[in-house]
């Protein structure tokens, strides 16, 4: 890696690592794993830096490494046990008590989803990527993204005990029953 490329990498990391860490946190569900995962993903990005020609695609590259690394760790079962209450942040900002409960319930339900399904939810609803972009990151078809996210929504409602809560009504034609 040349000095110039190294500087470009530094700039990228300083600018993007706070946002990427938030994504890593949502994917892993706890802070220590998120930091570990992001550092690994950034290290792999550093090694591939010379080959990532289009700088616009660096974010996409890092996301893909984040998700792939995490799902492979998850599959190996090393971090499969998640303590649901462990990492719910202590302080919430700008959230009234009632919706805070709803959001905590959704958050805990999220920790029960399989890694890849969870990643699909984070990329679609937090990063607000299109279905095509999510498919690109996960390395699957758009159809798979659609089916994974609609199954995820059903599971989340079920596991959070919110099946009949109007606040979690499903999108029309999204595979729901109502």
């Amino acid at each position, binding site marked *: 890696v040349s000095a110039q490329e190294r500087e470009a990498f530094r700039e990228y990391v300083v600018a993007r690592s706070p946002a990427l860490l938030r994504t890593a946190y949502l994917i892993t569900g706890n802070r220590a794993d998120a930091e570990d995962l992001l550092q690994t993903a950034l290290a792999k990005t550093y090694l*591939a830096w010379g080959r990532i020609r289009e700088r616009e*695609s660096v974010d996409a590259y890092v996301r893909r490494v984040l998700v792939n690394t995490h799902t492979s760790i998850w599959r190996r079962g090393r971090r499969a046990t998640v303590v649901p209450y462990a990492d*719910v942040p202590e302080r919430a900002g700008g959230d009234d008590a009632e919706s805070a409960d709803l959001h905590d319930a959704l958050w805990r339900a999220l920790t029960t989803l399989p890694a890849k399904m969870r990643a699909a939810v984070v990329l679609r609803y937090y990063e607000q990527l299109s279905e095509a972009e999510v498919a690109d990151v996960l390395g699957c078809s758009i159809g798979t993204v659609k089916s994974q996210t609609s199954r995820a929504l059903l599971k989340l409602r079920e596991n959070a005990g919110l099946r009949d809560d*109007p*606040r*979690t009504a499903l*999108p029309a034609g999204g595979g729901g029953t109502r």
Partner: protein
Amino acid sequence: MSPIDDELRRALERHADDVPPLPDPVAGAESRAGRIRRQRRGLAAVTTTLAVVAIAIVVPLMRAGDGKPADVFTPSPAPATSAATPTSTPASKPSASATASPPAVGSAVAVYYLGDPGGGLRLYREWHKTTSPDRIRAAVEMMLHAPLDSDYTTLWPAGTTVRGVAVEGEVATVDLSGEALKGTGTGSGAACWTLKQLVWTVTAADTSIHQVMLTVNGRPDGIVSRWWGVGCGRDVPMVRETSSLSDSTAPVQISSHNEGDTTRGNRFSFGGEASVFEATVSWSVVDANGTTLLEGHDNASVGAPERGSWQANVVLPGVKAGQHVELRAWETSMKDGSVTNLDTKKVVIGR
């Protein structure tokens, strides 16, 4: 958007909002890249060796068969280079991935204070919440006041206020009131730490800032060298000394909780950063009588001289909501097994 889409997005944003940034992501990524590179090289060497062994076996077999390939042995010598290829490939097409940051409804800022773990002063960090859009100013104002944890301190003279913060490119100029010049009367060594508090706090509040200038009552002329002494700061923009990271920051710190925080029930995790030998952090939870309820240790993600993160998962079935406990984390001395570099946080068990 249907209701669940919206609530899910808000739930994710709300939880993501509380994640503090990595202390030094660039150094972390580069050192880990070195490790991955060495691992891959090791793997490549093993593959090469295997290929050589395979050839060494197949050649005698061929000889034995008088030029005829032996049908019992089908070597598949993988090219040694394949092991050096990363598992992920770069994106083949550009994607419109302008990731919008979540709207700031109160964000966490790191505020640096000073503590003495035993061998002299070190920087300790507390996470404070701010709703101010001017994160640098908010963080510096908090730094000028006492920390939440009384084990730490600020060396800035009492009564110092922020007159203004100006940002130009990667340089932030912080203008403080005249009280800043009162001095702390603790010598120039401590004065350097006073400046470090400022530089680390400002550069943490806005990670695009790399250099910090200090003025007092709008005057830059010689303020730093005159009042803080040569050797720690000069009247040029000051930077974090990243090369001596572990010499500046706390060897062991609990950063998941502030002093006085309430935990989420009697089942929670706490953690932080550490730069300790062999990366081993010891921890315990102690009740108000000083009785140890639970103890353990965790390996930080990297060992000294680098900084890694560590975490303790705590389950305290007998402990009721409202009970006061103390979280402790330390480095066990290699010399005599004693407790060194201790950091503590008194917290209340929540429901």
